[in-house]
Each structure stands twice: as C-alpha cells, then as structure tokens.
C-alpha cells in the first residue's frame, strides 16, 4: 500500500505507516533496523530499490531522505509504502526550505524503537559522517568514495574523521580480494618479504588494499601502473616463491601459490545490495578497518 502526504509532519507520517501496515494484513513488525538513505533527486529511485533488495536479508524501515531547495517555506512531503514485494516498510521524505538543515528533526520520530540505525550516502557523502546531523542518529555510517569525482581524496578525507561505526564501501568492495589473499597465505608457509599491486592510478580499492597488506604484513608493498578498471595483479614475495593473483577477465583471476599448480578463482564485482548486506551483518566497530585507514593516513 502506498500513501502520499504533502506538507506533512512526522506524526502524520507515523500514523500513515501504522495504517499501511494494518492494510497490508500484518500488524506485526519483525524489522531489525532503520536504514537512512540520504540522497538527491537523481539517485533516489535507484538507491531505494537497492535498499528494498537489502530488506530481504535485513528487514528494515527504509527512510529515503531527499534534501531539496533550501529557499522558501519549510515543507515535508512524504510517500509511505508497506508490503509490495519487500519485507519491511519504506518512506520517501522530500524536505525543503530551512528544514534542509534540520532533517534530523523529521527523522528522529520515525526511527524504529530501540534498534540499530544505519545511514548510507550513495553519493555526496559528508567528509565527517559522524558529525553530520543525520549521521549523528546512526550507529553505522556508510559512505562511498567511489561515487565522488576524486575517490582517493574522498576516501582519505573520511578516513581522517574516522570514528568506530564508519565504513566506506571501498572497504567492503575489498573483502573478496582479502579473502583470496588470506586463503593464499593459508596455503603457504614462511614470511612475506614484499609485494606489489598493479592498478590504474586513482583506484580507491587498490589504495586501501596496499594499506591493509602493509599494516598486516609490515613490509612495503609497491604500486605498479595497470590499465584495467579493476585491480589487475597482486604479487606477494616469499622465500619459496611468489603468490600471484592475476586478472583474467572481469569475473575471474589466475591464482598461484608456491608448491601447487596454478588455477582459476572467481573474483568479480558485487552489486551495491550485496555490499550493503555484508556491511549490515555486523553492526559493531570494525577494528581491522580502523587499523587500515590509520595506516593509509600514516
């Protein structure tokens, strides 16, 4: 069921949500978190669709927040949607006038009681998410450096303001690479003496990978210039040979460790919904990420 409200208030939106829920036939709500999606007119459709997919794994109340024109009278327009092929419920809030600076006052009464709040900026992430009006309401703040014009600068800027609970999706994109590299070292013994990562300059995932490898292995990792969109090659030097992971195509890589025959492993891009689902599985602080960004800035 969908209810459209114009020039409205948080209390009216909350009433509409109860009404829609009862109309959908289920007054019970086993939702596990509130997801705040802070976005603009251009990306709002795609972002809410992603959030709805995510709801299948983490049933949530999704609040889409579009900050409009700051001029004119304060105004809240809302669209409440319950059911319709998604677990959980979603509200699209369009704010304009001075409210653009006080969005938190509209959002606060709409949070699910006593459960985690996650804020996600699909683009134009604030550099200091934990000091953002909406970000302050959330335990987990997800930014996305890749969506900005200068990803590495954006990554470093948010890293400078890191507090527990912040994650840039660049880190989530790195997980499959980290898993493969960890598996490679599971299969070899001895110390890593050095290594290199090959990528096209400006790739934030690769930058973060180097920081992670250096902070874990405590050896310098060199950058090599590549020409592919994705990381094209990672080499770790060891006493008995090299661990090499080299890209074949967009979805797979060659994998070779000293002492066994090389083989192919799948290593592709994941969808935004998959990235967010991974992030929401854990709501506590990610200490390894903290150590990695600390190394990135060092």
């Amino acid at each position: 069921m969908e209810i459209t409200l114009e020039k409205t208030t948080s209390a009216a939106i909350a009433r509409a949500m109860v009404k829609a829920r009862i109309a959908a036939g289920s007054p019970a709500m086993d939702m596990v978190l509130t997801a705040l999606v802070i976005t603009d007119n251009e990306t709002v459709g795609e972002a809410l669709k992603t959030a709805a997919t995510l709801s299948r794994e983490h049933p949530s109340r999704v609040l889409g927040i579009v900050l409009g024109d700051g001029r004119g009278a304060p105004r809240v327009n809302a669209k409440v949607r319950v059911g319709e092929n998604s677990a959980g419920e979603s509200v699209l809030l369009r704010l304009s006038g001075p409210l653009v600076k006080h969005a938190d006052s509209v959002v606060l009464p709409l949070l699910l009681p006593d459960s985690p709040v996650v804020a996600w900026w699909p683009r134009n992430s604030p550099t200091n998410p934990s000091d953002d009006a909406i970000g302050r309401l959330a335990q987990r703040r997800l930014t996305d450096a890749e969506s900005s014009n200068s990803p590495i600068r954006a990554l470093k800027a948010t890293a400078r303001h890191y507090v527990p609970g912040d994650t840039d999706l660049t880190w989530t994109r790195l997980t499959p690479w980290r898993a493969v590299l960890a598996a490679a070292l599971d299969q070899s013994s001895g110390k890593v003496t050095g290594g290199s990562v090959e990528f096209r300059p400006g790739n934030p995932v690769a930058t973060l990978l180097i920081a992670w490898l250096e902070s874990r292995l405590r050896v310098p990792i060199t950058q090599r210039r590549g020409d592919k969109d994705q990381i094209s090659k990672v080499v770790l030097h060891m006493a008995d040979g090299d661990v090499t992971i080299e890209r074949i195509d967009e979805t797979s890589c060659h994998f070779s460790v000293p002492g066994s025959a090389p083989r192919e492993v799948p290593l592709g891009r994941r969808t935004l919904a998959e990235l967010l689902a991974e992030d929401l599985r854990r709501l506590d602080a990610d200490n390894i990420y903290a150590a990695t960004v600390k190394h990135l800035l060092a």
Partner: protein
Amino acid sequence: MSLGSNPLRDAQDRRLPRIAGPCSLILFGVTGDLARKKLIPAVYDLANRGLLPPGFALVGFARQDFGHQEFKSLIKKAAKEGARTPWRETVWKQLVAGIRFVPGEFDDDAAWERLGATMHELDEQQGTNGNHAFYLSIPPALFPVVVSQLKKHGLATSDNGWRRVVIEKPFGHDLTSARELNEIVGGVFPPESVFRIDHYLGKETVQNILAFRFANGMFEPIWNGNYVDHVQITMAEDIGIGTRAGYYDGIGAARDVIQNHLLQLMALIAMEEPVSFKASSLRIEKQKILANARPAPRLDFHTAHAQYVAGWAGGEKVVGYLEEQGIPKSSNTETYAAVRIDIATRRWAGVPFYLRTGKRLGRRVTEVAVVFKRAPHQPFSKHDVEELGKNALVMRIQPDEGVTLRFGAKVPGTTMEIRDVLMDFAYGGAFVESSPEAYERLILDVLLGDPPLFPQTEEVELAWEILDPVIEHWSRQKTIDTYTSGTWGPASADEMIARDGRAWRRP
C-alpha cells in the same frame, strides 16, 4: 597452516569468511540420492559463497564406469538442479578443475590403489596437502568393507595432512549394533576424526536454540520444573514413506527420527549451560541429559505407536502403509511413534518431555513447545479466563522458522474476557538470504575440523539406551494401532498424554 600464523587473518576480522584449508572431499555413493540432491549442491553453494579453498577437490567413487567428462556433467547437472545460490559459470570452472572420478567395486584392491593414486595426484596438482575427508554416503552394511579397505591401503592415515570420515544416520538399529559400528569405524579412525552427520543439528534454527537460551537473561530463570509444566517435541511429515520402503520397513519412526533428531533436540532444550561453546563442553552437557533421561516407567501407558491407513491427506487420496510399494502386508513397522521421557535432574524432575513423530500427519512441521504452568492465582472470575490456556514458548524449527510466544490478552470490549494470543518472530522474514542449507554448514565444519555439531559415540549409545526398552516393548505386541492419513495420529497417542491430564498441541 593454522589461523594464528597467517598474518592476513585476525580473529577480529569477521568479514573474512571461514575458508576451509586445502583439502578434498571423497564421496562414496556419489550416484546416490543424498549425494545428488544434497551433498553436491551444498558443495557448489559453498564454492559460490567463496568458502571453499582454491584447489578444493571432489572425488567420486562408484561402481559405475563413467568417463571423466560424463562424470563431470553428472556433477554439473546435480549442482545446477539442487543449488540454492545462483548459477555462475566461473564458480563451476573453479570447481571442475578439482573433480576426479574413481570407478571400482569396494572389494577390488586395484580400485583402492587407483583411489590412493588419485589422492596423491591431487596433493601434487591441486595442493590438497594430504588433507582428505571420506564421506560414506552408503548403506551401513558396507561400512566395514570400506573402512577396512581404507586401512589396508594406507589411506586412513597420513603423515602430513588430516584424514576424516563422515557417516550418516542410522548409527545402528539398537545399542548392540551401534556399538559394533562404533568399533568398526573407531578401529581405524580416532574419535575426533569421525563426523556423524545429523543434518538437523546443522539447521540455523537448531543452533539458535543455544543462542536463545544462553544469550538471553529473561528465559533462564523460568527454564525449570518450577515454571515449566511439560515440553512437547514434534517432528511431523505430511508425506508417506515414498520410495524409501526398503530402508524404512523394519526400522520405523522411533529409530528413524526419535533416536537421533528428537533426542538431540531434547538434550539441547534440557541441558545446563555449557562452560564454553567448544565441542567438548557442549558434549558433556548433552551427555548428562541423555544419561539421566529414561522413558516413563509404564511403557504401556506412556508410549504409542501406529501405522497410517488410507485416507485423504491435504486434498489428496493416499494409500495406507501396508499398501505402499515394497511393504509386506504383515509389516508391524510403526510410522508414528510417541514416547514420554522423564529426565532425572533437579531442573527437570516432574517435567515430562513428550516426543512424537510420524508420517502422513496433518502437515509438515518440526517444533519444540515449552508449555508453562498456569499462574498460581488469578484475580479474575472463572468465566473471564475460560478461554485462557497455558502460556507456551514454541521454537519453530521448520518450515516457517521462528519463535512463537503464546500468552493471554484481554479481548477488546467492555467485559473482562481473556484469551490466548500468539506473538511471532519469524526468521523467515528476518534473515532470509543468510540462512544456509544444513549440509553446507556441516560439510564446511567437517573440512574445518570443527566438531560441535556432530554427535559422538557416547551420545549415540546413550540415545539407544533410552529407546531400546521402548522398541523392545513394542516388538512384543502382536498388533499395531492405526491412524487415518492426514490426521494428527492415533487415538492411543491422545490417550497416552491425556492420562497425565494434558493434550497435544495442534502444531
């Protein structure tokens, strides 16, 4: 290499999946139903979720003489049909590189030499490093020959890697046969290398019983005989025996389900808090319960067994057990079994555990219902609470996984009228995609060598000690009770629980 020595791994890094070390899974009975429908799809799903090591190998051993290509396409078909996760050609390409087939009879020494050579080749080419798990997806009668051949050809031990053996239920058909089986397997593999699969224990909802009981503060104080009236554990199936006649007849519902699944569930519900979640600590607590659990003293009053007869089940006309294909007309095998178990501990003295299972019952459901005592005093008139039953906490294991709490609430209106209502939590809604198939979890645990979810010899033997007297009592009876297909079991089961002044829940 252990987790501690890999600098890229860290206990705090919980994004990195638990990936098994390099190893192979060697499947005996690879052409069987279980392998095709469950094991191969589970292996593909694990690979797709990135949980298998690069270079993981899958070896099939079977009588048929497949060519390698033919065997690979057989595996591909099974994986494609049964997989829970989307099909990805890249994942398959990774998996197929490690697939091998060894044809041969179990008594043919040459075949075992070929298997040994294949394992050696995998160690060299795929880097499995001598780590191999043998999965015996074959009838228990064949265990002795397979296990002794493994030993004879030196495949059961290794200098550099690990060897593990996985066996499926039934773990014998009574205490004596279970002991024999344990001796055969135990004579070749040490206890910590034997993994008995009870796929129920791999279910997320079963593991959640532990989380529910021991992570929450509010349930523990009432989890005892002071507040709990009784417990009902039900595993009902709406289907008949289908094509399993050969296996089922002579085994029956009690051996098939109560001995393993239901007694394990009972142990998880009843056990004291383990000091840690290590396999050994969990096992100690489960064993204490099983060692002190006994069927109610009057077996004629507190057990029931029956066979289904023809009837209408869920809108379909179905035949009775004796008319099923391959069942002798004189069969006395029960398709429904119910027993009352008493647990002699301070926590549970006086709290009966009613266990029931059956085929062709009202619907497919597995659940554990903890039914609480009534409030000692109610300040309402008798009429106000006429419709109020006992409070109950129900763990729904399958389908529709979740937890239900039943309690009384006032019916809206001007009179004080109190009635039972249900409060539901559904895992189905809350954690859909992350709920893996039980076999995935169990196969991964075997490869990781993580044993908490696998029962060991002692638990199996204790469970038979509980059940043997009941089965013996039933075997002395000339006739067997019946129930109409599609109903909730025989009248004798209702009488059995009514003797204690209670009634079965309609699950």
